């Protein structure tokens, strides 16, 4: 009872310290907990695996550095799978803070897979306008993005010779952290232009997309770091998402424990006050 009483006045900095240590230790000493691949992740992987070799895919990376731990690993693995199939990648960004990060990710994986900028992949950069840009791309990708992320004319790149509008892509990959992102692509593009689509989203927004998965509007989905880690497992890669899952496991267990403990403390206090 004494321990529970002391918990009533627990300084929240102790909680912060425990969370910090629980996240830090598995990152330094991995636990290698077993991963299980869920059906939406398997479907995401299969949708890309079934693409014809050498096709051009639109990858919309709508996030900023805040979502880096969740969305960058899945972007990297997606790009690796596409490049391994010799697919070309046209990347766009609808978040104003994301263009620089997406450029680094694209160039990093491009270098790793020895792909040439402008021939095998291109970063069209950021464009303001949210849903209006999505619809505008349906009338012409190059007219919606006349210049790439570095300010060079888009039409001058060899990759853009084969690209007209959404009909040029057999698949749209939307990796997003919120608005504008996957939901708007489903509503404005998938519904209107009937382009097959898969999505990678943050864990907090993943429940929002289950109705679209069930209707087939999304062929597959990666939800948060867990989805990215499962995808890495399917691709036999050991990236930052897999490393992060041990830390996330510890944090989730601790939060569940906090809910239980917080209620036990509250319950005993109410009983004591009533007596």
């Amino acid at each position, binding site marked *: 009872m004494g321990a529970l009483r002391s918990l009533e006045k*627990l300084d*929240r900095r102790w*909680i*912060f310290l*425990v*969370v*910090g240590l629980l*996240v830090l230790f598995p990152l330094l000493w991995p636990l290698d*907990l*077993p*991963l*299980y691949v*869920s*059906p939406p992740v398997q479907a995401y992987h299969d949708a890309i695996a079934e693409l014809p070799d050498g096709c051009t895919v639109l990858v919309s990376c709508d996030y*900023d*550095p*805040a*979502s*880096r*731990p969740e969305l960058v690993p899945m972007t990297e693995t997606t790009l690796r799978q596409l490049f391994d199939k010799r697919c070309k990648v046209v990347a766009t960004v609808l978040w*104003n*803070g994301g263009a*620089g*990060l997406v*450029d680094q990710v694209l*160039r990093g994986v491009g270098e790793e897979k020895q792909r040439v900028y402008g021939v095998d992949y291109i970063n069209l950069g950021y464009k*303001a*306008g*949210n849903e*209006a*840009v999505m*619809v*505008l791309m349906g*009338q012409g990708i190059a007219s919606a993005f006349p210049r790439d*992320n*570095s*300010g*060079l004319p888009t039409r001058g790149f060899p990759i853009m010779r084969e690209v007209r509008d959404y009909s040029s892509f057999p698949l749209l990959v939307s990796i997003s952290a919120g608005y504008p992102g996957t939901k708007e692509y489903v509503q404005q593009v998938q519904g209107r232009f009937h382009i097959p689509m898969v999505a990678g989203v943050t864990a907090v927004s993943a*429940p*929002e997309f*289950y*109705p679209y998965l*069930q209707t087939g509007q999304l062929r597959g989905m990666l939800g948060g770091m867990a989805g990215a880690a499962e995808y890495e497992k399917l691709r036999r890669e050991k990236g930052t998402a897999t490393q992060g*899952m041990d830390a*996330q*496991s*510890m*944090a*989730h*267990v*601790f*939060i*569940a424990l*906090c*809910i*239980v*403990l*917080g*209620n036990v403390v*509250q319950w005993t206090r109410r009983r004591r006050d009533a007596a």
Partner: protein
Amino acid sequence: MKREFPLFVTAAVGLFMILSFFVPHQAVSVPADFLQQSAVIVVAFGYVLGGANVLRVNFDGIYRRRPDWPYKLVLAGSLLATLAIGAIEGRGFQSEGTRFMWIYDQVYSPMSATMFALLAFFIASAAFRAFRIRTLEAGLLALAAMLVMLGRVPIGNAWTQWLPEPVRLQGIQEWIMDIPQNAAKRAILIGAALGVMATGLRVILGIERSYLSGED
């Protein structure tokens, strides 16, 4: 006329954009494309307006020496410095190795990630202090939250690996997400879509006028 003309323009453009969804003929699609491009330009100007407003509000706070004025000074100074450096770099300001990208990599990116990472600490603290189970509904919510939280991470599977597949945490989590969660989410989506349609119709018909001057 001062009110009627904007209402007429809104109704005409709204109806025209709905028409363009169903009629792919050039007579409709070309003006619709122009309107879409105009919308993109208007949004871009929104950023200019937003930036100017941030400066106005913060300069006012600095001038009046409000309690948090040093922070406002840092914000306004950073905004102007980033803007100036980006403008000096020219069109390729986002290319590798520019000063603008140095600011992005070394300042914006880590600060943005740090702000989001703090969430983990506050969620844990809130779980201990605020997640109170006082009713049956709150109990069900807490139970579902814990099952999903543990089922989404490998440790939950490691703990229940000895159980038959449907009753492992992973299986229970998938069932919660696919069935009850999905049903509730779909209902919310349908409700929201009907609300958006009703609001759109109210705007086109001129019933909803709050966007003009705050009038209902």
